[in-house]
């Protein structure tokens, strides 16, 4: 019997992945349209974690808003904090003292390492390599201990204040960091022996989710995902903030722009972060850790856009001030939100299992996407 013509292809199937799927790294739902195992279309449903951070920024004073921002990208809370504090300082015309700048730089780079370690561990576990996860969390714990000793918190750290930092370094900080940084490059080699030439890893990541440099820029991809496509762009070099211009480091780039390239870029970035910290740790100057600030922060009327290189990409803040103690508009440009948009382009034509690989390689944090 001849098949009647229908509007829909009978072999097409719509599958909803998430919002409770372990490999979506949070409450992300992806509606997949499938032909057998092949992905025809993918639509992301987000917003499950929406807490209205931008609205809170209009109600809370400039100082009160800082800990709220830690809850966005909770994996890299230090970066969120640094970006916001620098934005307000720029608006006020204040510069943090050198000692505070060094503390900020060291903490932010250590935080970049923890963020990449968490990414590596979960990305590997998604693709079936469990051992890497255990190794990554071993090193991540070391850094979190440093954070805990410094400010009492492990994830939502609230380390910096507008104008400097709150806490003086604790005794033995330098030795602890130095010891960690000395061993760390060897640990990265260790992860690489598990994955880089692993046959299964290569099969799962090579040529999966390819995006060209031109497309990546058009899609607004930033961070390691952009550099994996061969675009050598890092805000730490392009628009140096904090004191990054004083240090030597390389920007690793990929060639093809597939999942494997993005993996290599992040691995190298961890080494480079360690390199920056090792240069900075011996040079921390003495002096105050807080600039002279008035008790009440009232920036001049105007607007400002300032962005930093968070572990995920370009983290921007657009602040409109009306001269009062709270922002008139506090906009966050979240890297994960913009990066997730390219998921569709990356997965179409691949298998369902590759969707897991691509979600992992984008390194998204839902807390930041939904805000």
């Amino acid at each position, binding site marked *: 019997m001849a098949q009647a013509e229908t509007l829909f292809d009978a072999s097409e199937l719509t599958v909803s992945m998430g919002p409770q799927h372990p490999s979506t790294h949070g409450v992300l739902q992806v509606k997949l349209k499938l032909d057998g195992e092949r992905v025809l279309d993918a639509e992301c449903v*987000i*917003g499950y974690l*929406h807490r*209205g951070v*931008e*609205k*809170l920024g*209009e*109600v809370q004073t400039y100082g009160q808003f800082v800990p709220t921002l830690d809850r966005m990208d909770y994996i890299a809370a230090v970066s969120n904090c640094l970006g916001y504090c620098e934005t307000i300082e*720029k*608006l006020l*015309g204040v510069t943090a003292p050198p000692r505070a700048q060094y503390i900020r730089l060291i903490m932010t780079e250590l935080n970049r390492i923890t963020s990449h370690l968490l990414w590596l561990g979960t990305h590997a576990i998604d693709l079936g390599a469990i051992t890497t996860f255990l190794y990554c969390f071993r090193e991540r714990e070391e850094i979190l201990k440093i954070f805990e000793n410094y400010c009492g918190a492990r994830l939502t750290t609230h380390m910096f204040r507008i104008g400097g930092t709150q806490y003086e370094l604790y005794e033995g900080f330098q030795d602890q960091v130095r010891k960690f940084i000395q061993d760390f490059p060897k640990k990265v080699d260790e992860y690489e022996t598990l994955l880089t030439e692993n046959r299964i890893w290569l099969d799962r990541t090579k040529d999966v989710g390819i995006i060209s440099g031109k497309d990546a*820029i*058009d*899609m*607004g991809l930033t961070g390691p995902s952009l550099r994996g496509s061969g*675009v050598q*762009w890092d805000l730490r070099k*392009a*628009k140096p903030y904090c004191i990054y211009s004083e240090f030597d480091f390389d920007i690793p780039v990929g060639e093809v722009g597939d999942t494997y390239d993005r993996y290599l870029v992040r691995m190298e970035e961890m080494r480079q972060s360690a390199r920056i910290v090792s240069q900075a740790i011996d040079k921390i100057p003495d002096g105050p850790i807080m600039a002279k600030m008035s008790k009440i922060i009232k920036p001049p009327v*105007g*607007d*400002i*856009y300032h*962005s930093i290189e968070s572990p995920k990409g*370009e983290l*921007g803040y*657009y602040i*409109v001030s009306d001269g009062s103690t709270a922002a*008139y*508009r506090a*906009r966050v*440009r979240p890297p994960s*939100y*913009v990066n997730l*948009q390219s998921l569709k382009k990356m997965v179409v034509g691949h298998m369902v299992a590759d969707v897991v690989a691509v979600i992992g390689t984008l390194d998204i944090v839902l807390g930041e996407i*939904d*805000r």
Partner: protein
Amino acid sequence: MDALKEKFSTQFVKAYSFIGQNNIEVKKALIAEIMTFMRDNPITPCNYLADETAVHWPKDEEFEIVYILYSFSKNEYVKVKTRIKEWETIESVASVWTTADWLEREVYDMFGVRYANHPNLKRILLPEDWVGFPLRKDYNVRLQDVEWVRKHLGIDSGQKYYVGEARHEDPNYITPTD
């Protein structure tokens, strides 16, 4: 800057610098053309749209749409701003930069700014049937769509403020206040 001024002399409002950042104000009518020009001309090749957002100015009954552009070859940011009245639509720039797709959906979701020729203009962070636009200044921070919460979550949230049938198009819409 001069090239833009020359080409779109009728659309140009002003250009100024604040804390070392460049700002251009233009009229909204030809925004897509202006953006295409910004992307393609050799003097300001802004091939990357860093951010697009809005600011609500209820006194003037206006939204300010802010585009933050970046040029990879010049290594420079520039903010392009335009103002629209609350009930007006604005041309989408999703055809100029793909990034704008989700960014504009978020602006629509939070402010209710309607874009013309957008490929898929619907809510992104909030549920589809949510009433109200949270980042408008007349939306109290404790405001909530109580009806939605009751219907979908089966709970009474106990919020004092709520959006009933009043929608932003309603000229008699009164803001709930303390």
